[in-house]
């Protein structure tokens, strides 16, 4: 195990804000991970704890089975060999690109070669003599990556690496960065609030909420078997199915469970294991999908479908296997 975190706690403002609350996790060498969460979920704090930029209140962090953080021991960030790509890159404005990349390399021989190698890796050969403000945002991003990779870290953390970029550039760079990191074989952790980014660039996603780790799983598992409605909502819009509504579909649920369905799992052509009468309130075209507001009994909700309903009175249905069932504590 490359990194293991055990029962980590961290609070700010004298305990008023619990940024990280009892988090345990394990990361393997060579894999790509994503910390997914909204702002305030503790994902950045967790990353800063791992990098050694913060000290935990309780709990331990081990890197390669060596203790690096506990409530009584703190290996300073500069001795951890953990790379960090900052949200706003934090490139040193007074140094050239080459000097920025060189900054973290220790030992003189081979320094220049290493810088060249890094610049080649991120496709910025020939940019060494420029200053950070002379290159574009995407290029700055890659310089930040090259700089973090140059000292050959065992683990690299990337804090919201794509949040400053527009959508088109973001997708392009996401692929690029992923390829670069795969080539180096370093274990990487992306910190992001964007579920699509998280799915696209990681082998495993760790979802955080209010300082707690909700689920650690591969993108497929996470998508198909979310551990809570909160996790599911990262990827889809959920429709709440109260018992009375379920009855309309002639489905008899258990008393202590909460039921949801992703809004695109409803079918408007009358197929499915459970069906009910619905009247269409309105239909909106959103491009490749339609958003249909329907009324079933006294309940009104919106569903998403690739084909618009053919009449105003329809049958809607869904399949048993698509139903999401959670305990009440997992459906906040």
């Amino acid at each position, binding site marked *: 195990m490359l990194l293991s975190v055990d029962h980590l706690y961290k609070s700010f403002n004298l305990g008023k804000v619990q940024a990280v609350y009892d988090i345990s996790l394990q990361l393997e060498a060579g894999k790509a991970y994503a910390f997914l969460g909204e702002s305030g979920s503790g994902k950045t704090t967790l990353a800063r704890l791992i990098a050694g930029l913060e000290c935990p209140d309780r709990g331990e962090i081990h890197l390669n089975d060596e203790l690096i953080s506990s409530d009584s021991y703190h290996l300073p*960030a*500069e001795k951890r060999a953990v790379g*960090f790509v900052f*949200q*706003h890159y934090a490139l*040193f404005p*007074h140094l050239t690109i080459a000097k920025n990349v060189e*900054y973290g390399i220790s030992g003189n021989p081979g320094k220049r070669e290493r810088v060249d190698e890094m610049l080649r890796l991120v496709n910025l050969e020939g940019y060494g003599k420029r*200053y950070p403000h002379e290159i574009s945002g995407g290029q700055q991003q890659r310089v930040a990556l090259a700089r973090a990779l140059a000292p050959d870290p065992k683990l690299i953390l990337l804090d919201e690496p794509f949040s*400053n970029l527009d959508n088109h550039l973001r997708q392009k760079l996401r692929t690029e960065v992923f390829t670069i990191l795969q080539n180096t074989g370093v274990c990487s952790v992306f910190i992001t609030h964007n579920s699509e980014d998280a799915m696209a660039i990681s082998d495993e996603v760790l979802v955080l909420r209010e300082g707690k780790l909700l689920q650690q799983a591969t993108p497929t598992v996470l998508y198909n078997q979310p551990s809570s409605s909160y996790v599911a909502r990262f990827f889809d819009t959920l429709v709440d199915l109260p018992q009375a509504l379920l009855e309309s579909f002639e489905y008899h649920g258990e008393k202590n469970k909460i039921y949801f369905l992703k809004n695109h799992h409803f079918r408007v052509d009358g197929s499915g294991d459970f069906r009910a009468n619905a009247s269409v309130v309105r239909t909106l075209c959103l491009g490749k999908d339609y958003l249909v507001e329907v009324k079933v009994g006294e309940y009104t909700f919106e569903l998403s479908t690739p084909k618009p309903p053919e009449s105003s009175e329809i049958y809607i249905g869904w399949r048993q296997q698509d139903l999401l069932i959670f305990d009440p504590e997992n459906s906040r």
Partner: protein
Amino acid sequence: MLITVVIGIPALYVFVKLFDGPGESWAHIAEYLLPKYVKNSLYLALICAFQTVLFGVTSAWFSVRYEFYGRRILEWLLILPLAIPSYITAYAYAGIFDYGGSLNLLLGWFSLDVGRIDLMNINGLTLILSISLYPYVYVACRAFFLHRSQNLIDASQVLGKGEVQHFFKLILPMARPAIVGGVILVLMEVLNDYGAAKYYGVNTFTTGIFKSWFGYREPETAIYLAALLLVIIFALILIEQKQRGTRKFAINGGSERQLQRLKCSRLKQIWVTTLVALPVFLGFIAPVIQLVYWAVISYVKIDWIALLHVILQSLSIAALAAFCCVLVATSLLMAKEWNRLNWVNQISKIGVLGYAIPGAVIAVGVYIPGLYFDKWLIDFVGQTFSTKIGLLLTGTVMALIYAYIVRFLAVAFNPISASREKIQFGLVQASQSLGKGAFSTFIKVELPLLKPALLGAFILVFIDVMKELPLTLILKPFDVQTLAIEAYQFASDERIIEAAMPSLLIIATGVLPIIFLNRLVSKS
């Protein structure tokens, strides 16, 4: 526009005179004195720059990076040396290190004798100027360190660098614009200084101007020297802009996190406290103690009624000058805003250059054109109205106030303009959309919002005028006396003990507003 031209006259006049040829004793001065002036002034500037950076940068860095005993108090005590004009610090130190001075007296109690440490030379002068001027560097660097560093320090740390490396590889080179900005102010003050250099017997450009003015009675020579000094100063400004070049030191976007303070062991805290307290002690506490001591022993000699008279004159002149400065600065700012023409903006920049020009140069530049103006006015009025009038500008308070405005306009302009920029343009537009014209928008919206800045600007100019020596010395009317002049005259007459009381009064007028401003700043 008119304001700018009027403000620009002294500098322009002095500059034009450079091509006019100097007076008779120029040959003598050029041969025997000029090389010395140049050498001394440059030496002073260089060493002072180095020493103020040493004091200013270290104290700024320690005070923002570490938690230590008395940090909160020391943080603003570090600014206080600015409240003491450097010539007064110079007098005080002369007293401390003299034969039978305070240091000897003190060491005498422990039966130690160090003899006389001779401070009255150029090296002593650099030390005096440095300990009284380092706050310029301190203030500039402190602001920089506070707001721009944590993200980059984090980056440096995860790249494997320690605290010492952060400072030398990152903080110091990045702070260069802030440091240079502070140092430029220091250099202006060094070149402006007359009182301290005169008292320590060091011949500089400024003392040279005085010597040709009062000694040789040759205004042409004085102007020529002033013009040369002006050239040096503009060269300085150019060099600074050039070396900055196209490089940007600002950090791209993003929320900057405030620097986090490091906690350290008790022993280290004591160390840091001592280190940070040292400039405060040297620049403020020691000279004030010396002055208080003198004031106490000269207490019986003080002519209180005469002193009160001087105090009142001094305060009213300073208040009047400060008021005029704020008024002119505000109208300049508004003119700039209402007039969208670009060249007006460019011109308004010239208006605020005055602070770069030494007081003695401005004084010369005001005095001589003023004389011509008066002659013309007397002739004109005499011919058209057949009445006789006296000198209107020369040797009157008006000329003095005018010169103060020329010199200190920037001091008022910069804070007001900075504060104006913070007012959202939307507010002005909102007011205009509600049917208010530019002027009533200014009165109803901008003026109330600018109030703290106007007050701050007033106080800054007020302190500066209270301290001002060389300009006042040349331009003051005979019957007008300021505290600064009083202190200077006592000191030159070797009645230095009696200089203590007026000096302390100047310091008090400087310290009180700083405390007030500090409160204002920490509140908001």
